[in-house]
């Protein structure tokens, strides 16, 4: 170890704080000048910590879902009854779905309808909730062979959650629709009135830029719109709700506070995606 005289050491220790302060200020300026610097560092850290998060999150999800032998035994009976009832209901809906599918085929054949390509998708587990004060995002695991998934659309079982904004080699950040920086073009109601859904850092994103003559009505369904080319038309987002007069917000279908598994859809990698994007 380097031996220094006491006055020199004291002077050095007094200097470290101002020097580090200057370095940090430099970092703020560098981060401001070059946005990629922060993104690159963040992606690197996310990737490095992904295995840690995955290991640490597993017991938490287990407890949450009451998994493990004992929790299962307690709920076996109730689950069974629920599943039987649900199965009955689903069988009825299956019949309806088959009838509608047949009708749909018949109508399509009359219209010479060109089918839109099905997007490729994979399921991804949420391993970390990396929101800050003014940011809503989650970190998900991605398979090794997933490349170029930036802009992939994330949905949970019921609706749109957000889209991928950064991707590393084994993890990706999903910007949620509730984030302040999120702007999603949407179509409202049966006639598809256009608007922009703007995240406002709360549970309910706000609707802006709707046509003044045709305001969104309480309870109308909100779907994604293909304007801008990132989202395809027609993914379910939520329903319109009025917080105050003239302040329509969207109540998302997705359970934004308890995201555990997401499906990531890659629409823009499809060869026919452009055709699909221009469909109204």
């Amino acid at each position: 170890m380097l031996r220094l005289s006491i006055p020199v050491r004291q002077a050095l220790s007094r200097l470290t704080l101002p020097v580090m302060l200057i370095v940090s200020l430099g970092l703020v300026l560098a981060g401001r000048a070059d946005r990629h610097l922060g993104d690159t560092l963040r992606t690197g850290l996310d990737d490095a910590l992904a295995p840690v998060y995955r290991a640490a999150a597993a017991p938490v999800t287990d407890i949450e879902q009451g998994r493990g032998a004992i929790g299962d035994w307690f709920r076996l009976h109730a689950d069974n009854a629920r599943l039987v009832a649900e199965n009955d209901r689903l069988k009825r809906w299956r019949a309806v779905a088959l009838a509608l599918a047949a009708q749909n085929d018949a109508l399509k054949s009359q219209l010479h309808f060109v089918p839109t390509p099905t997007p490729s998708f994979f399921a991804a587990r949420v391993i970390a909730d990396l929101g800050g004060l003014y940011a809503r995002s989650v970190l998900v695991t991605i398979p090794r062979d997933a490349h170029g998934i930036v802009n992939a659309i994330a949905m949970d079982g019921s609706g749109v959650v957000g889209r991928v904004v950064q991707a590393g080699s084994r993890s990706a950040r999903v910007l949620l629709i509730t984030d302040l920086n999120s702007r999603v073009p949407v179509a409202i109601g049966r006639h598809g009135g256009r608007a922009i859904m703007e995240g406002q850092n709360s549970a309910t994103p706000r609707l802006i830029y709707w046509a003044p003559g045709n305001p969104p009505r309480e309870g109308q369904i909100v779907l994604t719109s293909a304007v801008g080319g990132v989202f395809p038309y027609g993914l379910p987002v939520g329903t319109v709700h009025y917080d105050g007069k003239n302040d329509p917000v969207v109540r998302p279908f997705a359970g934004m506070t308890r995201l555990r598994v997401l499906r990531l859809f890659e629409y823009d990698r499809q060869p026919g995606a452009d055709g699909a994007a221009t469909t109204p």
Partner: protein
Amino acid sequence: MEGVEFWRSLDRVGRHALPAVSIAVVMIVLAIPGLLPLQAGVRVGFVMASVYFWSLYRPAALPAPLVALLGVLLDLLGASPLGLWAVLLLLEQAAMAAIRRALVRRGFLMVWLVFAGFVAVLTAAEYAARAVLDLAMLPAAPILAQGVIAVLIYPLLAVALIRAHRGAAAPEQA
């Protein structure tokens, strides 16, 4: 004798590293989804309170470069502008160095009150810096909530940290 010396030095290194490592570990643990409500606010409050406590009672445990690193980690985990928290934490440490002598003998209540003052100043500085860096007016509610959480966290944390300060983090006991 050689072996004893080795273990003792390992012990000493462990005790020196405890504050910084524990802060980093808790920061990462607080990223696990669904642990607490307002997790991001809790994370920032925890870091502010820890840096305050260690700079007051054991300044040697958290040298400035480590504080800067923890700040950058906080910026990368949360989504604050890169380097912002490094600057704020270093300022917190510098302010603490200036008033440390007078404060270290005072009782808990006084220390807590001063911490509340620190939180108020840091929170205002964070809000102003973010507004300037993003060139946007940001809603004030989340940052106020974060400040309140930080002030409330301190007593809880102090109980645990005082034990660590007298026991596991004390190099003189190595």
